């Protein structure tokens, strides 16, 4: 009899939990206490690391220092090139009049536990709702994308890894931009590309980067390298297997990417406005007086009009139309085109 009550209760709970968000607060309250369990079971590892760092021998430290120095040097070198590339990228984007390059903010999180169920690939990290983590947020490690946040708790959150069988991510081949979808296989060292045509230009060693389609993951982060491409004439599609670049089952420190929460339309509008402001700053000083009277009265961007306002007094005496503070940039851009 009691079993019946409990079973009915459990089933009711499961249905409610699956369909509604009613139980989320209860769950997060319970997790406040229960998540200590992961912290406690992680303690030996932490202690070991602490002791090891206390008693690490001098030679080891020297060797590590040396290694880090060379690594820093290498990275510095790459960074110099990166600076130039970023510069170039910004210039090219300006030429294309497209959205400004958004620098994503990242925050470091630490792994505190693995999911005990060996058939799912999920991990727990030590940043939660109170740290500003949101559902669906992408997680990286030093080498590539790892996965996304699927459950939020106050001070911890659960991350679904790329290799879980229920996970897929839109990718593209870095070499030629070929798009595909990489699905997890349940094997921590393998992703599979689904529905890739037999004739598609993809080969062993290709780097797959996130394509940014699906609007969940930011574009351009490395995801995997293609390990083998099997062409079987009996199959409709090629079988493409790839190895994730991130150390999915080894990394201890992860990066949470905070990309902005605005909708794509909003982002595009704001980027356009920023672009206009930039154009105006570049264009107005060199723009001759006769060009400005053609300005349309209504500008789309009142907010970004302030720089124009400051430059306006120089131009106003020259023409008849009253210079409104919101003068405009759509016109200037039009002219430039």
């Amino acid at each position, binding site marked *: 009899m009691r079993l019946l009550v409990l079973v009915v209760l459990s089933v009711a709970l499961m249905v409610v939990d*699956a369909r509604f968000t009613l139980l989320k607060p209860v769950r997060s309250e319970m997790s406040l206490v229960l998540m200590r369990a992961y912290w406690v079971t992680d303690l030996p590892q932490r202690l070991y690391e602490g002791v090891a760092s206390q008693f690490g021998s001098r030679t080891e430290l020297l060797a590590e220092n040396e290694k880090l120095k060379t690594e820093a040097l290498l990275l510095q070198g790459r960074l110099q090139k990166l600076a130039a590339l970023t510069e170039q990228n910004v210039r090219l984007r300006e030429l294309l009049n497209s959205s400004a390059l958004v620098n994503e903010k990242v925050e470091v999180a630490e792994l505190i536990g693995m999911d*005990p169920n060996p058939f799912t690939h999920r991990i727990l990290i030590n940043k939660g709702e109170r740290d500003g983590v949101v559902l669906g947020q992408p997680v990286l490690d030093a080498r590539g994308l790892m996965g996304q946040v699927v459950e939020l708790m106050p001070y911890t959150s659960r991350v679904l890894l790329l290799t879980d069988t229920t996970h897929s991510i839109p990718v593209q081949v870095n070499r030629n931009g070929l798009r595909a979808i990489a699905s997890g296989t349940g094997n921590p060292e393998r992703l599979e590309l689904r529905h890739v045509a037999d004739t598609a230009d993809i080969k062993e060693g290709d780097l797959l980067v996130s394509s940014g389609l699906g609007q969940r993951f930011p574009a351009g982060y490395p995801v995997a390298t293609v390990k083998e491409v099997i062409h079987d004439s009996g199959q409709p599609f090629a079988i493409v297997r790839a190895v994730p670049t991130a150390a999915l089952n080894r990394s201890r420190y992860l990066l949470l990417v905070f990309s902005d929460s605005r909708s794509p339309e909003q982002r595009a509008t704001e980027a356009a406005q920023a672009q206009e402001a930039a154009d105006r700053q570049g264009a107005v000083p060199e723009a001759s007086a006769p060009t400005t009277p053609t300005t349309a009265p209504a500008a789309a961007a009142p907010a970004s009009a302030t720089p124009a306002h400051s430059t306006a007094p120089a131009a106003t005496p020259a023409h008849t139309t009253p210079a409104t503070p919101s003068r405009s940039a759509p016109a200037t851009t039009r002219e430039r085109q």
Partner: protein
Amino acid sequence: MVGTRSRNGWVIWVTFIVGLLLCVSPMPQFMEVLRPLWLALLLAYWTLSVPHKVGMTTAWVLGLAQDVLFGTLLGQNALILSLITFLILSLAQRMRIFPMWQQSLVILVVFGLAQLVQLWLSALTGNRQPTLALLLPALMSALLWPWVSYLLRGLRKRLGIN
């Protein structure tokens, strides 16, 4: 008598907390599939020895805790654990007079059944587990049963929990 009972009842809960910790403690990759059902083992022992203290409600509450820890749907493990406790309770009369190896066999069958229900539930919720490897934890638990039960019996005798 009442005094001792209320004094040492907490030991049961301490073992349950240790059980919860064991459920999530990190293990090498290849041993993950073999992780025994610690909570179920502890519950089985305590329901057999002190049925007036530990029953299906306890199992259900612990199951909820496990659900939160594992991130499964609330109620899934609760259902499984109360089912296990129910089966153990209904077999309790016979199990108490069985020799140890027979008790292990019963544990194997009961836990195996529970794992199959677990498979069914997780298939319903979309996390289909590919193989029957999920019966391995039941086997592991059955193998561990004699040791767990000796250990807990020693604990119970020494602290006079009844």
